[in-house]
């Protein structure tokens, strides 16, 4: 890896691009595998997979990642052959391909972590290299015996799958035909148009494709349609269905049949472009997949979005200063009507800008979950259980920050479902269930700004007694109580723990992610023998912030790190008479007002009680000037999820929202500057009214 330094500046772009290619390749490989298991061809996925590896190889060659280039090269080579064979892959080829992708992924991760990519395993390369001949051997030779009449079948306009369908029909003893229908006004008057013809023909045959033909067609009309069919019906019957002549029926079977099967050289593919017209991917065609892939999307680093958010925040702060200035002008009697109108417009624009930026951070749920099929595939192999994963997530979107946190919880639940909930095929058969277990994940967005994900399995259900025994607790009497037990830290029904689960995180972590980190909700329903359903409701967006956690008068509070200028030890407080308990501390040669947070939060607290003794203070700017807020203790710094307080009852200045520090009790997130300012105003008003307001 001598070249890595040279290409360092391209590495981030390379990693991002390759990540995406790998994700789509994995998805395609899974659908290929699915098709292979059913003995079907999957031409589209094979081609996509081929394209992905082709691009991957090219990109990796550009940044000189030799191991990835070799891996991708041999995979690409066999996939090219499979594509030419109409998208067929032998079953034995799936595993090496999966391993190949994994090996590429491992190396890409190494690069991402700043390491050199380790060399490609020689035996894997050998196996991948051997795939090509295997693909050729398994190519469906019987199907090749029948050859379409390229001209009659408009071969160039057929997709490989359509061609295969026609050939398959022929090989299966049916007839592959082309029926031309010529519309005319008289025919239309009799109710014969392309739609009714389609319907009539569909009763007699499988319609593979309908092609409009322009130019002179049979009967001299300027427009006609060719229907390509597989059927057992007689020509006469079909002709009648399309209204008789000038319609005509043509056989699609080549009049000059291909060389008899015995004469085909073993393992020699037919030359691309002749017998398999339109089947082979030409290299020119591959030169611009990026255009298609781009599709108007732009990849942006999250940090840049965050930066944009910060600029927006600065704009908001500036706006409130402007508002104050205008208010002052108005009070001074200046004509500010127009200024006020502009200010209001400006406020709307800021809100629009904010929601536009928030939308930028949204990712599709479907994209987030694209790893799950691969996970289930791995579990299927590890557990020997037959399981099908059904994903129905539509086009819901959620914030990237939520998605990143949610995924591990979902991975855990899916793992649990396959590992613990689903029975073995034998048990399922004995219970009269379909042998293949089902895990389904659906989601929808609620109007309240929540995403509801439902993960359902049709396994044996949670055994409340076993859980109670493991937790050494009484048997719970409700699903909620059972879930509480399941979510106890460290709970495990370990005797059935396996290599795939039972390690890593438990249900307690799932709950912590959903409830505490995301401020969502986790519910469970379970029925013995019928299965378990987990419902996760999470907010579509969360506001994350680094916060300093402080203790004051026995309670904990969080304060955004960004607002705190300095943490100081409170010492040498001067308490001027008549300052209403506000002290002064010295900070770098200047006197800074010191306010007791306890007093600020609860005016009945003593002005200079225990809180003043050896306590700490946070210096925050209040209306531009530094103010020290005295607290009892500093507990630390951590990332918190800010939950805004929506209800008018608790929407008060100085309280930015609440968060959960893990104790199940809301902890207030304070905006000290706003809190101090709001209290100062109250105090003034109260003083004027001659009474004290708490």
């Amino acid at each position: 890896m001598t070249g890595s330094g040279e290409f360092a500046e391209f590495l981030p772009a390379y990693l991002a691009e390759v990540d995406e290619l790998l994700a789509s390749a994995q998805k395609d490989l899974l659908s290929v595998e699915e098709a292979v298991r059913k003995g079907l061809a999957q031409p589209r996925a094979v081609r996509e997979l081929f394209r992905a590896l082709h691009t991957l190889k090219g990109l990796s060659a550009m940044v000189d990642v030799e191991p990835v280039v070799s891996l991708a090269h041999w995979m690409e080579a066999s996939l090219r052959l499979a594509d030419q064979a109409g998208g067929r892959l032998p079953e034995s080829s799936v595993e090496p391909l999966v391993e190949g992708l994994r090996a590429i992924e491992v190396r890409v991760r190494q690069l991402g972590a700043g390491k050199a990519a380790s060399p490609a395993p020689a035996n894997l390369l050998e196996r991948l290299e051997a795939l090509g001949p295997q693909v050729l051997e398994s190519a469906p030779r019987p199907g090749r015996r029948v050859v379409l009449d390229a001209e009659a079948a408009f071969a160039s306009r057929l997709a490989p799958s359509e061609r295969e369908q026609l050939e398959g029909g022929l090989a299966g003893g049916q007839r592959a035909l082309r029926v031309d229908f010529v519309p005319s006004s008289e025919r239309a008057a009799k109710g014969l148009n392309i739609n009714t013809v389609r319907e009539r023909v569909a009763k007699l045959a499988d319609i593979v494709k309908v092609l409009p033909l322009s130019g002179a067609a049979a009967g001299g009309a300027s427009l006609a349609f060719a229907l390509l069919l597989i059927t057992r019906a007689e020509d006469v019957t079909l002709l009648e269905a399309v209204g008789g002549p000038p319609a005509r029926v043509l056989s699609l079977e080549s009049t000059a049949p291909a060389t008899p099967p015995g004469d085909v050289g073993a393992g020699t593919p037919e030359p691309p472009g002749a017998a398999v017209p339109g089947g082979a991917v030409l290299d020119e065609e591959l030169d611009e997949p990026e255009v298609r892939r781009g599709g108007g999307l732009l990849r942006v680093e999250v940090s840049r979005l965050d930066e944009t958010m910060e600029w927006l925040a600065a704009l908001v702060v500036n706006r409130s200063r402007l508002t104050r200035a205008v208010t002052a002008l108005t009070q001074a009697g200046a004509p500010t009507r127009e200024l006020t109108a502009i200010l209001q417009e400006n406020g709307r624009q800021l809100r629009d800008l904010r929601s536009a930026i928030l939308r930028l951070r949204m990712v599709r749920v479907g994209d987030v979950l694209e790893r799950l099929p691969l996970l289930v595939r791995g579990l299927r192999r590890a557990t020997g259980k037959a399981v099908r994963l059904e994903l129905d997530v539509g086009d819901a979107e959620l914030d990237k920050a939520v998605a990143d946190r949610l995924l591990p919880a979902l991975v855990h639940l899916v793992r649990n479902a396959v590992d613990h909930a689903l029975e073995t095929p034998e048990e399922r058969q004995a219970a009269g269930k379909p042998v293949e277990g089902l895990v389904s994940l659906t989601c929808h967005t609620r109007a309240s700004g929540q995403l509801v994900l439902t993960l359902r399995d049709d396994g044996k259900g949670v055994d409340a007694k076993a859980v109670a025994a493991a937790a050494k607790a009484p048997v719970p009497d409700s699903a909620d109580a059972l879930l509480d037990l399941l979510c106890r830290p460290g709970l495990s029904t370990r005797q059935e723990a396996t290599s795939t689960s039972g390690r890593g995180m438990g249900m307690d972590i799932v709950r912590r992610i959903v409830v505490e980190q995301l401020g969502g909700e986790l519910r469970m329903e379970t029925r013995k023998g019928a299965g378990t359903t987990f419902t996760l409701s999470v907010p579509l967006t969360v506001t994350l912030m680094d916060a300093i956690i402080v203790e004051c008068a026995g309670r904990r509070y969080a304060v955004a790190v960004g607002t705190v200028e300095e943490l100081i030890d409170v010492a040498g407080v001067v308490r001027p008479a008549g300052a209403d308990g506000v002290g002064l501390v010295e900070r770098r040669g200047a006197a800074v007002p010191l306010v007791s947070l306890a007093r600020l939060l609860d005016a009945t607290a003593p002005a200079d009680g225990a809180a003043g003794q050896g306590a700490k203070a946070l210096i925050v700017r209040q209306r531009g000037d530094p103010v020290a807020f005295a607290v009892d203790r500093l507990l630390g710094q951590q990332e918190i999820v800010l939950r805004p307080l929506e209800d008018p009852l608790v929407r008060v200045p100085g309280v930015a929202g609440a968060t959960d520090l893990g104790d199940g009790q809301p902890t207030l997130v304070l905006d000290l500057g706003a809190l101090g300012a709001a209290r100062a105003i109250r105090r003034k008003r109260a003083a004027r009214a001659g009474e004290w307001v708490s």
Partner: protein
Amino acid sequence: MNVLHVLFKVDGTEYAMPAADVVQMESFTGATPVPGAPAHVAGLVQVRGRVIPVVDARARFGLPAGTPSLDSRVVVGQLGERTVGLLVDSAREVLKLDPRTIQPPPPMVVEGAKGFVRAVAQVGPRLVMLIDFPRVVGEEAADVDGQR
């Protein structure tokens, strides 16, 4: 057409609200006070991951403050888009109230209850006050909720 109601007690008096407006009931283990919130707001509690305000029924009804006990309950009510809890002394019963037994409150009750009592129902020998939940929770309800 008997309507299911949730019954609860505050300072010895029985109150009720339609069960359809009640999301759930939770035992009360303390609320996080919110400085600057109206005096009848006990604070915030977390109910299944959601943070909701809790209105102290005693404070709201102008009754002497009580001490939270094992019987204390938060009746979590739905007010349009809002979810608000009501802290009561106890809540044990769910009853179907016959509309024919529901009467407008006597003038004296109306005055004493500051409009929080919407009607009075006779359940056997007992008198149950049907509360006007939106009003108990706070005037803001009218702005936020509109239809109520």
